[in-house]
């Protein structure tokens, strides 16, 4: 009997151990599946995939260790992640800088003295960040160093002062260098006390499973974000009425899924190492008031602001009474949020971003939260110990409140996401009476919600119904959901599966796998080169992150001596005779203002002269002059002509950055015809309509003369007036976009034909363009209708990935290989169409154009 009694706990102990091991294995299996999803959908970066694999291995080891060894192991794993992503040298710099800041926080001097020292150190780092003092480490370190210390060091110092938690080297290293941070410049503001206090404060397998669940939820949100980003976003210029304005507002708010998805992923991963943190976001699209929204969206930020600003200020101001102290402390919290976002931007990008419409967004949100707080002070919202049972009145009231709040936040988000206040106001102006109804809807809905609430109280009383305890999904349910979801996602990612389904499925999966920029952001990125448009909206996470990887400021052509402003419609031009180093290559401009070899103005006898017109890609942005496809094309033509033929080709490169569409018509008239070319090759790009509108809008803004009568007629019809903001002019011109480009092409053809020049329109794809887009096809059609001979180079990069043929991740101009492929394709196409272009057969059909070019390369 005694033996049996003793045996029961032993057996129970073994069973518990076995169940524990099984659960750990299940979590590891789920994590492995999630790593597969991360790989198949290219979630975030290549570095994050490596980090996820490190986390998978690390989790298995970590979960097998005795509890006391786990925090030191996590610290080691976090340090290992620094070297994995940054390599030895940069990794050592990051560690040294971080450990230095931690050491300063613990100097054996009074707390205030330590703060002064840290502020002074931060001052030196600021000077280094803006380049006033040379930093011996890589630029890549800044965003991550900033992300690790810019907010957490403030919390750490606060907690040190108030002795709110225990401190040790292991805890500090774990806190500041925590595992996923190395891949994410944008990181939730995790509280030091909470980080320590909740380490394994509940059943470990429940913590792990919740972490896995959140990671899965984060991945799903990131995939949804990509669908929104690539399929739903609308260019402000396309907002022309209430429907498109609602579409625009909704899509911009939905883009926040990116931040929420990332934060779920990050915190979920931390839970795998026992840090039992709370949610970072909680159903924020379903907020039922403005204070509720503030509490649900980015909860860690709210907690940070409440702990460090709201409570200290509110406690100080209590003598002012509830109303006074709430109003003042809330204003200070929101002003602080606005400033700290700019401060965050500084560490990530290296420059402060303080914009008026940004300030307006925070001011309006602060006002709404203040009004809401005062209302709640008077009429406290119902709270419960669990989930309260619903009744019809309550459901209707909550639905009205939620819809009203959602509408206001969408409108506010659309303001925040716009390039300027003027642009947003113009979009609103296009909505007409529908817009009035849209703006009137939220107050009406909130009033209705209040009325329904009162009816509920009359009908049901203040009792909130039966208390129903909140239920968490069991380990088994949660694991089953994650595993099934991950398996479905992995299976769907394979063409065999998605091609077997409906046609939309393939499109959705490919969109979810698309890590690139959408059309609008790509255009913004391109314009950044020309107009120094680096003020990427804070809401635009895709562009912001791309810019954060650009390793500092890259010089624009208009910031160099090779560029000068003409003060007219054309804008600027290359300066003749200048020679500089630009984007890692020599940039030498000939006496005519071309990046090309020298040519005589008069065409020599026996020469067939082609004038190449286009923008930066033709000029060879980011490429060596000898690699430019135009130069290679010229060499190939001449190499193919036997000397006995007595004919030579000259291809003159008139490529000018930022010069597409209408500006090229002016250049054609002013510069090109003087060289008496036999043919003009206009290298059109997807952005032709956009740039044409852009150029007109710029001229309107600057009050510059636009030398085209048809443009003035369109401006009159669009209601554009001199001095109008550029984005407003673009919006007004949007309905005339196709007409503008058709007439532009018509002008080019007419001018060419007047001078006896054969007009050829060549579609020049960006290095990351695959296939033929609808817009490219439409442009080709317009060119053909205008009278151009049309040559598409769309398939030039076939078989190559964008990273192989473009200058850099943030620069889609073709690199040397890209130019070579363009030259080969152009040559083949021209040989095929030579009778139309040259009026006769000059060139033998090539044995192999590519071979000819490669032979020349070899030489």
């Amino acid at each position, binding site marked *: 009997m005694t033996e049996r009694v003793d045996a029961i706990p032993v057996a129970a102990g073994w069973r518990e151990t076995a169940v524990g091991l099984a659960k750990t294995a299940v979590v590891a299996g789920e994590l492995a599946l999630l790593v597969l999803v991360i790989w198949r959908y290219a979630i975030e970066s290549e570095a994050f995939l490596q980090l996820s694999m490190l986390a998978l291995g690390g989790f298995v080891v970590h979960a097998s260790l005795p509890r006391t060894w786990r925090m030191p192991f996590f610290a080691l794993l976090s340090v290992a992640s620094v070297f994995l992503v940054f390599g030895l040298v940069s990794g050592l710099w990051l560690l040294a800088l971080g450990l230095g800041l931690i050491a300063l926080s613990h100097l054996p001097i009074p707390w205030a003295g330590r703060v002064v020292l840290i502020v002074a150190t931060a001052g030196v780092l600021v000077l280094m960040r803006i380049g006033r003092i040379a930093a011996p480490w890589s630029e890549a370190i800044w965003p991550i160093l900033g992300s690790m210390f810019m907010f957490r060091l403030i919390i750490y110092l606060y907690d040190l002062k108030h002795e709110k938690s225990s401190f040790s080297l292991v805890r500090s290293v774990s806190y500041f260098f925590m595992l996923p941070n190395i891949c994410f410049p944008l990181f939730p503001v995790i509280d030091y006390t909470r980080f320590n206090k909740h380490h394994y404060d509940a059943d470990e397998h429940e913590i792990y499973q919740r972490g896995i669940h959140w990671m899965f939820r984060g991945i799903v949100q990131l995939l949804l974000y990509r669908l929104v980003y690539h399929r739903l976003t609308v260019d402000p210029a396309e907002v022309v009425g209430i429907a498109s304005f609602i579409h625009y507002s909704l899509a911009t708010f939905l883009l926040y899924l990116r931040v929420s998805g990332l934060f779920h992923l990050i915190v979920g991963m931390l839970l795998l190492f026992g840090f039992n943190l709370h949610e970072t976001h909680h159903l924020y699209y379903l907020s039922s008031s403005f204070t509720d929204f503030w509490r649900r969206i980015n909860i860690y930020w709210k907690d940070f602001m409440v702990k460090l600003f709201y409570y200290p200020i509110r406690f100080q101001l209590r003598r002012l009474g509830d109303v006074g102290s709430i109003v003042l402390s809330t204003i200070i919290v929101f002003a602080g949020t606005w400033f700290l976002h700019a401060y965050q931007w500084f560490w990530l990008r290296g420059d402060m971003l303080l914009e008026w419409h940004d300030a307006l967004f925070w001011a309006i949100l602060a006002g709404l939260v203040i009004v809401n707080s005062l209302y*709640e002070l008077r009429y406290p919202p119902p709270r419960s*110990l669990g989930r309260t049972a619903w009744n019809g009145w309550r459901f209707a009231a909550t639905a009205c409140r939620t819809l009203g709040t959602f509408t206001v936040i969408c409108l506010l988000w659309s303001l925040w996401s716009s390039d300027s206040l003027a642009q947003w106001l113009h979009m609103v102006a296009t909505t007409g009476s529908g817009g009035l109804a849209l703006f009137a809807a939220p107050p009406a809905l909130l009033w209705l919600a209040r009325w329904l609430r009162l009816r509920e109280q009359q009908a049901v009383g203040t009792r909130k119904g039966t208390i129903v305890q909140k239920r968490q999904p069991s380990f088994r349910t949660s694991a089953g959901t994650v595993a099934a979801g991950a398996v479905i996602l992995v299976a769907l990612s394979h063409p065999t599966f998605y091609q077997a389904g409906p046609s939309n499925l393939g499109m959705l999966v490919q969109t979810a796998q698309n890590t690139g920029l959408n059309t609008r952001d790509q255009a913004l990125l391109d314009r950044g080169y020309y107009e120094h448009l680096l003020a990427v909206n804070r809401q635009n996470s895709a562009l912001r992150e791309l810019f954060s990887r650009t390793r500092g400021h890259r010089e624009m052509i208009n910031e160099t001596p090779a560029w000068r402003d003409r003060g007219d419609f054309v804008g600027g031009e290359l300066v003749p005779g200048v020679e500089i180093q630009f984007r890692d290559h020599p940039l030498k401009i000939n006496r005519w203002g071309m990046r090309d070899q020298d040519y005589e103005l008069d065409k020599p006898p026996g020469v067939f002269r082609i004038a190449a017109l286009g923008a930066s890609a033709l000029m060879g942005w980011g490429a060596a002059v000898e690699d430019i496809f135009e130069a290679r094309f010229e060499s190939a033509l001449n190499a193919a002509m036997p000397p006995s033929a007595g004919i030579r080709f000259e291809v003159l490169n008139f490529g000018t950055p930022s010069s597409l569409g209408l500006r090229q018509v002016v250049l054609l008239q002013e510069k090109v015809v003087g060289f008496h070319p036999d043919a003009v090759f206009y290298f059109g790009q997807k952005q032709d309509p956009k740039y044409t509108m852009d150029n007109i809008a710029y001229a309107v803004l600057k009050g510059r003369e636009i030398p085209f009568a048809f443009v003035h007629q369109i401006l009159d019809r669009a209601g554009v007036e001199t001095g109008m903001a550029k984005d407003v002019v673009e919006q007004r011109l949007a309905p005339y976009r196709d007409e503008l480009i058709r007439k532009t092409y018509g002008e080019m053809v007419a001018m060419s034909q007047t001078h006896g020049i054969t007009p050829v329109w060549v579609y020049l794809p960006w290095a990351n363009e695959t296939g033929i887009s609808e817009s490219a096809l439409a442009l080709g059609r317009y060119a053909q209708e205008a009278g151009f001979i049309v040559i598409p180079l769309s398939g030039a990069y076939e078989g190559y990935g964008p990273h192989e043929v473009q200058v850099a991740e943030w620069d889609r101009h073709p690199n040397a290989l890209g130019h070579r492929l363009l030259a080969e394709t152009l040559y083949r196409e021209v040989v095929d169409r030579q009778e139309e272009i040259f009026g006769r057969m000059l060139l033998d059909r090539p044995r192999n154009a590519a071979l000819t070019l490669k032979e020349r390369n070899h030489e």
Partner: protein
Amino acid sequence: MSDVKQKAKAFILEKFLQGASEDELQDTTPLITSGILDSLGTVALVEYLEETFNITIKAHEADEDNLGTLNDIERLVQSKQ
């Protein structure tokens, strides 16, 4: 149940949980993480505790450690009396 807990419980039930029964609010029921006390509610509770028990609570003490449950509240108040 101590006087501190009883008074704090009565205050919370009356101010934030009208209609809930006393049994539903336990000594270990989370007050902050469950959303019963938000920042406005926390300040109201602090003011009530200060007035009722003639103590001073500082801003950095208004957190989950000290106001997370009725037990935590009792410990905080007793440490200041």
